[in-house]
């Protein structure tokens, strides 16, 4: 095992898969030698693999994804970096109508082994156009797989699975997690999609949390523990497929659930998870489901404002106390 940041874990996955398979290549704005990606995930890759396989692009999100689709259906395995998740708005047609639908719409003639990596999340005061968490949209697009790692271990393992998968994968990263450290094995490993992780076992309540919120949920669980409340923290790790069995199993055990994610509340990630529980485990619930998410506002710039809208340990604890 070694200690490594989320950023470095992602980079290791990229490097190892590019070494393993020469059809894997990267394209995106400033991913190349002059910048190495806005969050430095691809730093050094152009030097190792050359400018052809680590391609800087013009600012053309729609064409970047479109070109990746074209490359994917003709034998390559492109990895696209969209600099900020908010900018996927510019490539939605290519993601949703092209990448996601090609396999089905053409009757299985083509596969689209494409990974789209992008950072979501707030917390760094860069306001409404650079702080959104839009994972829920992509969950609503059949044909896409959606990964959402919260740790270096998951980041590397899931990214490797994503790259090797023949389907388009929307790979969510989180700005605040890039410098976050954790341990990973020295040897090659992958993590199957659709398998949630019980981050902390508990008896009294289930806290389902995604991405950065997993860590806030853990802090909340620590505090609650001291008060004698044992919270189970569950991280789905992939949103599509969603590990419903794990969700249901945990709720059956605890009888209560708080569901936490960034992204605004209405029609968000927490809505889907709540709906799954309401459909499949309602008889085991001893209390209403509670969703903790961003209120339905854009992300404001000023620190006290931004802090007010992003869920955290305290809001999670408050939500738990409401039902437990």
């Amino acid at each position: 095992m070694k200690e490594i940041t989320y950023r470095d874990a992602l980079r290791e996955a990229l490097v190892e898969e590019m070494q393993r398979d020469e059809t894997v290549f990267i394209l995106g704005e400033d991913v190349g030698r002059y910048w190495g990606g806005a969050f430095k995930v691809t730093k050094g890759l152009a030097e190792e693999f050359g400018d052809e396989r680590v391609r800087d692009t013009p600012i053309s999100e729609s064409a970047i994804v479109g070109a990746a689709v074209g490359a994917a259906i003709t034998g390559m395995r492109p990895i696209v970096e969209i600099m900020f998740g908010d900018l996927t708005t510019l490539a939605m047609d290519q993601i949703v109508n092209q990448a996601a639908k090609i396999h089905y719409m053409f009757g299985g003639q083509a596969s689209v082994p494409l990974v789209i990596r992008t950072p979501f999340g707030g917390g760094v005061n860069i306001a409404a156009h650079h702080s959104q968490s839009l994972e829920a949209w992509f969950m609503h697009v059949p044909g896409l797989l959606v990964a959402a790692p919260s740790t270096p271990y998951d980041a590397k393992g899931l990214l490797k699975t994503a790259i090797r998968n023949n389907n388009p994968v929307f790979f969510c990263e989180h700005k605040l997690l890039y410098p976050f450290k954790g341990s990973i094995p020295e040897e090659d490993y992958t993590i199957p999609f659709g398998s949630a992780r019980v981050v902390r076992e508990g008896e009294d309540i289930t806290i389902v949390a995604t991405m950065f919120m997993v860590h806030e949920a853990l802090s909340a669980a620590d505090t609650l523990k001291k008060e004698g409340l044992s919270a189970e923290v569950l991280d789905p790790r992939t949103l599509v497929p969603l590990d419903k069995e794990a969700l249901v199993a945990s709720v059956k055990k605890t009888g209560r659930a708080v569901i936490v994610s960034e992204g605004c509340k209405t029609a968000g990630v927490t809505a889907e998870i709540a709906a799954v529980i309401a459909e499949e485990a309602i008889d085991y619930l001893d209390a209403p489901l509670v969703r903790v998410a961003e209120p339905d506002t854009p992300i404001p710039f000023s620190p006290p404002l931004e802090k007010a809208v992003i869920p955290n340990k305290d809001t999670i604890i408050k939500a738990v106390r409401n039902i437990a």
Partner: protein
Amino acid sequence: MDDEGNGNLGNPILDRSRLIELHEKMLTIRVFEERVFELYGQNLVPGTIHLYAGEEAVAVGVCSHLLDDDYIVSTHRGHGHCIAKGARLDRTMAEILGRKDGYCQGKGGSMHIADFSKGMLGATAVVGAGIPIATGAGLSIKLRGTKQVAACFFGDGASNQGTFHEGINLAAIWRLPVLFICENNLYAMGTRQSQAMIVPDIAERARAYGIPGILVKGNDVLEVFKAAKEAVERARGGNGPTLVECKTYRRMGHSRMDPAAYRPRAEVDEWLRNDPIRRSKDELLRMGISDAELAKIEARVSDAVNTAAEFALNSPFPDSKEAFEGVYGQEGT
């Protein structure tokens, strides 16, 4: 007319037997489209259709330079592209009719036919969306180091989409082996080109990307053939993309239900006189083809389309449970 009085088509790059091939291909598309139209009238075609009739010289002139492993990307008006690229008539027809033996097993339909076995990478019905996809196919060719090329068909209307700008620019800076073939049929639905852009010639827009733009009479298969030859050679030679604008005209409305009343009568008449198949036939006659030969071609085409229609009509509808399958492919290694 060249020195030998053979007309344009006496040009050595396109001899008589080759022209016969092109003519037959165009005629195949025409007769196929007429049959689709007829079947539509009989309520045998679900949804809508956008006929290619009148624009055959473009697809045929371009695809005649392409090998099976070259790529094309197509549009909502894509039947002609499929046939020109070598897709089977029967499975194309079956797809249009929503049958199990269609190329996409009935999941795609008229607007989403694909034949990956012939490098036909599929039709997208989002106007302009195919442009960056073709760029990506070109990128793939470059990265894999093969000598393939990719051709992308799209309309005058598509050239106002952001994807046109982004996709061509990307192909230009990376010198990708892509042909951007603009089928300028003067209208996007009811919107005349001059309402939607100031420049009269879309080929002019190539300058914005620093690539060659060629303007051709799109109803003259020889002109298309020549321009495509040049563009394919440039692409295969590693010298990057070309924008080829082919001025053409649809014989029918935009889609099956459109009477196209927005087109002035005189304009329609002129373009119908300027029909690509009529032109190639005239050239063949000038080259001395016999009526008997022509009749033989027509009979072959008619047979082929009949057989295809029969095949399609005999193909069953897919079983409803198939709707739930095939969203994801194999996971991979």
